[in-house]
């Protein structure tokens, strides 16, 4: 196929939402490069998802990117009916022939590293964690984080709350405040709103998926970042070369592919913890250390 190929994305939330914003960013970058033309629909209701998929397929899109999480069956059915279009969908399940590839935010590795930093930094030994829903992609990162923290500080205790919404910053903020009241001096910011509480109360927060250090100067201790570029670029290249396979693109989110990365604010973190984390990072990149994948719901430990 010739450049630019036609790419459409379908999001069930607005593009500001962290998770989706990473896909949007990667696709926009590809558009800048001239590899693709890009259009998207955001905040698509589940009821409408199938129609939107079909509409894009009917429009002759070469590649459709989206999230199949709540519409797995329908999405797979539509994809099968449009074999000429490649589908790259966020999914907890496997790929499907002939054209349904899957990906997910596999950034448990950097999450573990942020946990190491957090464990070494907390003074009260209480870390508050506010999540959206207890689904595998969230649980996995939280569990990795907790494991990392326990690795550097076995005394650390966790408070866990799910706000049961992907998107309610004031509520996430209130949950965070409640944790601070209970003694947390470090927050794991799975959702928007948590870092705001941290900033307001002058404590530190751990970032997730996107880098918000600029928005909260002096607050973000360390972040586990997700980069969709390796995944998206791989898929685009495959479509361009007519070699798109219904594969699992998940591993492209691993650190070794550059799909996940770990950043730490060295002015805020203890130097020995930074050194330890960096060392562990090397081990992960070198394939010497595997972070456990644990999808079960994390619970408060105090």
């Amino acid at each position, binding site marked *: 196929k010739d450049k630019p190929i036609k790419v459409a994305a379908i999001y069930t*939330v*607005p*593009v*500001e939402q*962290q998770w989706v*914003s990473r896909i*949007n*960013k990667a696709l*926009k970058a590809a558009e800048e490069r001239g590899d693709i033309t890009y259009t998207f629909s955001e*905040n698509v209701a589940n009821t409408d998802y199938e129609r939107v998929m079909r509409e894009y397929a009917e429009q002759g899109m070469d590649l459709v990117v989206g999230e199949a999480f709540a519409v797995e069956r329908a999405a797979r059915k539509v994809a099968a009916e449009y074999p000429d279009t490649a589908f790259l969908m966020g999914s907890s399940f496997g790929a499907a022939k002939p054209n349904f590839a899957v990906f997910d935010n596999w950034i448990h590795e950097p999450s573990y590293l942020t946990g190491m930093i957090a464990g070494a930094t907390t003074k009260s030994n209480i870390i508050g964690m506010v999540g959206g829903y207890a689904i595998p992609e969230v649980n996995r990162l939280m569990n990795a984080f907790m494991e990392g923290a326990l690795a550097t500080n076995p005394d650390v205790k966790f*408070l*866990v*709350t*799910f706000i*049961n*919404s992907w*998107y*309610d*910053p*004031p*509520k996430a*903020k*209130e*949950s965070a*405040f*409640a*944790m*601070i*009241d*209970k003694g947390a001096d470090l927050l794991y910011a799975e959702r*928007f*709103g948590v870092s*705001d509480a941290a900033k307001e109360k002058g404590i530190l927060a751990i970032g997730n998926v*996107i880098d*918000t250090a600029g*928005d909260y100067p002096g607050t973000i201790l360390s972040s586990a970042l997700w980069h969709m570029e390796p995944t998206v670029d791989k898929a685009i290249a495959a479509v361009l070369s007519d070699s798109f396979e219904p594969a699992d693109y998940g591993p492209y989110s691993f650190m070794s592919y550059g799909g996940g990365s770990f950043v730490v604010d060295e002015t805020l973190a203890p130097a020995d913890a930074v050194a330890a984390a960096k060392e562990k990072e090397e081990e992960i990149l070198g394939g010497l250390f595997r972070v456990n994948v644990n999808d079960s719901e994390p*619970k*408060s430990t105090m």
Partner: protein
Amino acid sequence: MSDILEILLNANFWAAALRIATPLIFGVIGALVCERAGVLNLGIEGIFTAGAMAGWMAVWLGTGLWGGVLVAALAGGFFGLIHAILTVPLGLSQHVSGIGVTLFATSLSYFIYRTALPDVSSPPRIEAFKPLDIPGLSDLPFIGPALFQQTPLTFLALAIVAVTAFVLYRTPLGLAIRAVGDNPSAVESQGLSVYALRMGTVIAGSALMALGGAFLTMSAFDAFFFGMVNGRGWICIALTVFASWRPGKALIGALLFGAFDAFQVRLQTEVGSFIPGQVFLMMPYILSIAALILVARKADYPRALLVPYFRGQR
């Protein structure tokens, strides 16, 4: 048990309750004055959104924070005007007009936001209102931290409760508003304009509602999000009935709701593992209904609520 007591005795808990209650206070007072004049305003959910978006965007464009508050109020007033025109002189169903206004205000806010900011990857931030720190007062035990962790908008909300109560019960305007919600012809036969009174009240009430939205983007948070209002407007409609259309009770209702919400968030980390979180989230609604059952017999409705008035109608 001791955990619960510990929560309740914590000043930060009450600070959170007041913070959560603030947008509801604006909303319930706004809804209350509209209904006192005989107009149910189900546009509230959309007006909240419009206030949140307009206020935030104004600040983002550089009007300054109080400029943003003003813009939010104007936006609320604008949608109030639409609702007022539809329901007062045109006498359309107040339910439908209200839901129409909610759809319109919400979709217009979203559309404007997205069209103006098509390329944001994370929502742009503004410098939001800071908690008022009044030296001396803030250091008072308990009261200090509970009250003086609040931003100016919270104090504005409290002031509005007092002003509304004063206007409704102590001034000729308030008398006219209470009368027009009970029997419009009483007002007309005394030479006042039913339309002007009702429309003015709905516009003013809607402006107040919009401040509740503005609080969300300018105090509770510092950015605008889709779906940010999240049913807070509807809660205010329930609180109005709960408050029997009285500003003082409305304040109490909003604070109770805030306290419950704050309590729930804190309790969830304690017992969250064996009671589903939704049970806590349901509590405020269930308690509202329970409260309604208790007050319903005594509640005196504005008798002309929902009834359109046509001059010369018999």
